[in-house]
């Protein structure tokens, strides 16, 4: 029982600690070390190579020279040959980062080829790959003509695949619409705009903007303000996870916003929510997920919609005893510095009393050397407990409001811990009927003094103590248990009740004799006081009490078996030793063999006797038929005896009986024939 409670306590405590960390911090060095491991190996395709190189570029990790060399070789090979558009697309993407040495003529050839495919392409994916390839060529070789003559037509054919809810279809003959496809379409449209030889009609761009707003209406949401996109249809040909879907939309929207002249007006909290979604994943263990996360964050880091700023706390636990400072960090998603701003605590309240604010509007000081905002003087009226602090980010430059998404009021749970004072501990043995004090012991729970008490079933035991917070208020912990443990390891746990200011428990032994199973003897007393915000939670022995309980009556409840140790229940079981019957003593083999030969002696004697008696086969029938029957008769008997031997060696009773039945019929027949023949012969002899 005690271990169970201990486990529960640890669980509660860890849960409360885990629950505190709700705001994910920006990308940190942990990401960088994992990235080096995840993308360290060789790449099977250019797509993988691109993902690795792009992640390294974003995170500022240097490429290994041999990786660049081998990948460049692959890129040049791919660009030279007539590989599919998808491979060209990734080759160009890699080339955009690595800047391999590619002949300008090669770009010209590709541009001509890809332009041809743009007009023929029927599916969204093909269009996306061709247009994106052209955009990449434009960036990498400025002298190549990549401009689309029929930009309006291509724009229209992509737009024709859009649905009323802002999602896109993969092709005109595929009725299912997809959010992932919307991301691809937006990126393709952005490409068309940047490749257009004449400017695209502004009204068309505005309809796409509306599509984006509609798409953001279908965004999914968690309770903590995290936003993400998910694929709605089920049973599609390829199901995209919410991470890749969200990352596709982010890529599309940010690319589209960067090429148009106006601004896409998306609510800042949704953009921040998307950032929260990517950061909330932590560090993915899968290379594809890792790339999606890091690339999307990089796009959010520098986009024209709104740049999310992430408020994070290195620690959400404030210790009253240590008097350290409450620190807040504000960064962009990739961890770089935010523009000049002030962090304010709008208000703070106890998590169980939302309406009564502890304090309101405090400004945090900015520590420039460390880039953190510090609450230098922690308000005096904050006692131990769990609080919710409401932060707000105020940008110094009011124009920045349009550029940055700060997320308005940010609720952060803060744990204020402190040392709880334990006082007035007292343990008393009372006479039950009179209520007079038999023995009274004062206890200092801070030390390790133990008491020795004795009581009988007519007495009571009273134990009381007080808990006060550093501010002098009575404190009510999550757990206050008194534990009585008998010598035989039988345990009884009592919850210590709270009566206003102090904790008190009265154990009336008369009422407890049944519960104690009439077990007299020494009981060890243990006290457990614990709480998540109590820095000095303790579990300490108080001493022991010698109990004299009455004799066990006839009808009393039997003593239950001790509960099994929960940790051993799942452990290995004791090995099962198989006990076999010891083999019987056998006589020496020689003796047995001697007796085997001895048993043959009477048989030999029998044969010798037969010879001496002059036995002969003269009576054996001489004519053909009876002789055959005679031989068959003897063979039949021999067969039955052989069958018996087989039965002894391996056959079972049923097969034996069946065969015996058959042989028996045969034997009866031939036996009858031969014996009746013999009988007739002898009777003839007699009569003669």
């Amino acid at each position, binding site marked *: 029982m005690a271990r169970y409670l201990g486990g529960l306590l640890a669980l509660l405590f860890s849960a409360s600690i885990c629950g505190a960390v709700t705001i994910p911090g920006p990308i940190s060095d942990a990401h960088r070390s994992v990235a080096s491991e995840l993308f360290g190996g060789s790449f099977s395709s250019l797509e993988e190579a691109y993902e690795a190189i792009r992640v390294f570029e974003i995170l500022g990790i240097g490429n290994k020279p041999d990786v660049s060399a081998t990948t460049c070789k692959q890129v040049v090979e791919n660009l030279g040959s007539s590989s599919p558009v998808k491979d060209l697309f990734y080759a160009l993407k890699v080339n955009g980062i690595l800047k391999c040495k590619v002949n300008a003529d090669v770009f010209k050839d590709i541009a001509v080829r890809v332009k041809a495919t743009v007009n023929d392409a029927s599916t969204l994916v093909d269009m996306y790959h061709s247009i994106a390839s052209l955009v990449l060529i434009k960036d990498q070789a400025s002298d190549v003509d990549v401009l689309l003559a029929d930009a309006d037509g291509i724009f229209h054919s992509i737009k024709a695949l859009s649905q009323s809810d802002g999602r896109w279809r993969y092709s005109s003959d595929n009725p299912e619409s997809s959010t992932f496809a919307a991301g691809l379409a937006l990126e393709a449209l952005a490409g068309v705009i940047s490749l257009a030889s004449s400017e695209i009609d502004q009204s068309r761009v505005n309809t796409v903007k509306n599509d984006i707003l509609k798409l953001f209406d279908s965004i999914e949401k968690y309770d903590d303000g995290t936003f993400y996109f998910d694929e709605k249809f089920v049973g599609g040909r390829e199901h995209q996870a919410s991470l890749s879907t969200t990352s596709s939309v982010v890529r599309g929207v940010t690319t589209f916003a960067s090429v148009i002249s106006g601004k896409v007006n998306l609510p800042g909290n949704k953009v921040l929510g998307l950032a929260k979604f990517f950061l909330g994943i932590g560090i993915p263990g899968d290379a594809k997920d890792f790339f999606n996360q890091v690339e999307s964050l990089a796009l959010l880091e520098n986009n024209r919609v709104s740049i999310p700023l992430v408020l994070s706390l290195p620690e959400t636990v404030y210790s009253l005893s240590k008097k350290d400072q409450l620190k807040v960090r504000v960064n962009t998603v990739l961890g770089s510095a935010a523009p000049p701003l002030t962090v304010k605590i709008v208000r703070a309240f106890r998590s169980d009393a939302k309406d009564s604010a502890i304090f309101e509007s405090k400004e945090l000081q900015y520590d420039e050397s460390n880039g953190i905002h510090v609450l230098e003087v922690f308000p005096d009226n904050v006692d131990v407990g769990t609080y919710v602090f409401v932060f707000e980010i105020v940008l110094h430059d009011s124009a920045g409001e349009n550029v940055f998404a700060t997320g308005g009021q940010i609720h952060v749970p803060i744990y204020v811990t402190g040392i709880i004072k334990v006082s007035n501990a007292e343990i008393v043995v009372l006479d039950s009927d009179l209520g007079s004090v038999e023995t009274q012991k004062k206890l200092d729970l801070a030390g390790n003094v133990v008491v020795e008490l004795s009581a009988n079933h007519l007495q009571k035991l009273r134990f009381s103590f007080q808990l006060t917070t550093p501010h002098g208020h009575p404190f009510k912990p999550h757990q206050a248990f008194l534990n009585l443990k008998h010598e035989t390891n039988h345990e009884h746990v009592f919850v210590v009740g709270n009566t206003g200011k102090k904790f008190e428990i009265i154990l009336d032994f008369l009422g407890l004799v049944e519960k104690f199973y009439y077990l007299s003897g020494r009981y060890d007393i243990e006290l457990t006081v614990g709480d998540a915000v109590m820095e000095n939670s303790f579990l300490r022995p108080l001493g022991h009490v010698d109990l004299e309980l009455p004799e066990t009556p006839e009808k009393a409840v039997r003593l239950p078996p001790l509960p099994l140790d929960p940790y051993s229940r799942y452990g290995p079981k004791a090995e099962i030793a198989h006990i076999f019957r010891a083999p*019987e*003593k*056998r*006589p020496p083999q020689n*003796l*047995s063999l001697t*007796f085997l030969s*001895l*048993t043959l*002696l*009477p*048989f030999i*004697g*029998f044969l010798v*006797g*037969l010879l001496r*008696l*002059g*036995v002969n086969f003269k009576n054996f029938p001489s004519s053909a038929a009876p002789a055959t029957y005679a031989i068959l008769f003897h063979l039949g*008997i021999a067969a*039955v*005896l052989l069958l*018996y*031997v087989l*039965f*002894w060696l391996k056959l079972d*009773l049923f097969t*034996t009986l069946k065969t*015996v039945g058959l042989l*028996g019929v045969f034997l009866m027949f031939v*036996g*009858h024939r031969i*014996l*009746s023949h*013999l*009988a007739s012969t*002898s*009777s003839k002899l007699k009569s003669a």
Partner: protein
Amino acid sequence: MARSSSKDAQDLFRALWSAYAATPTNLKIIDLYVMFAVFTALIQVVYIALVGSFPFNSFLSGVLSCVGTAVLAVCLRIQVNKENKEFKDLAPERAFADFVLCNLVLHLVIMNFLG
């Protein structure tokens, strides 16, 4: 006195033997067979007395096989003996058939018991 008694015994046995010599040969064969079975049983009893009774069912089946077949042989002898008027009408071949059948049944049981 002692000498005369041993002589008497010798005389007795000689008389018995000469009387027995007149027995028909087929009865002698059966007697010989009975002796063979009984001695085999005796040897097994001696063996089990020496080494203890471990494969007891084997011992039982061995001894009972011998004793059983001896008893059956004695029955056969009774039926075949012409001086027994009781079985005058019974052909010796019929008696032999009975003997064979009983032996087969007996040994089926014995084999089952052998273990």
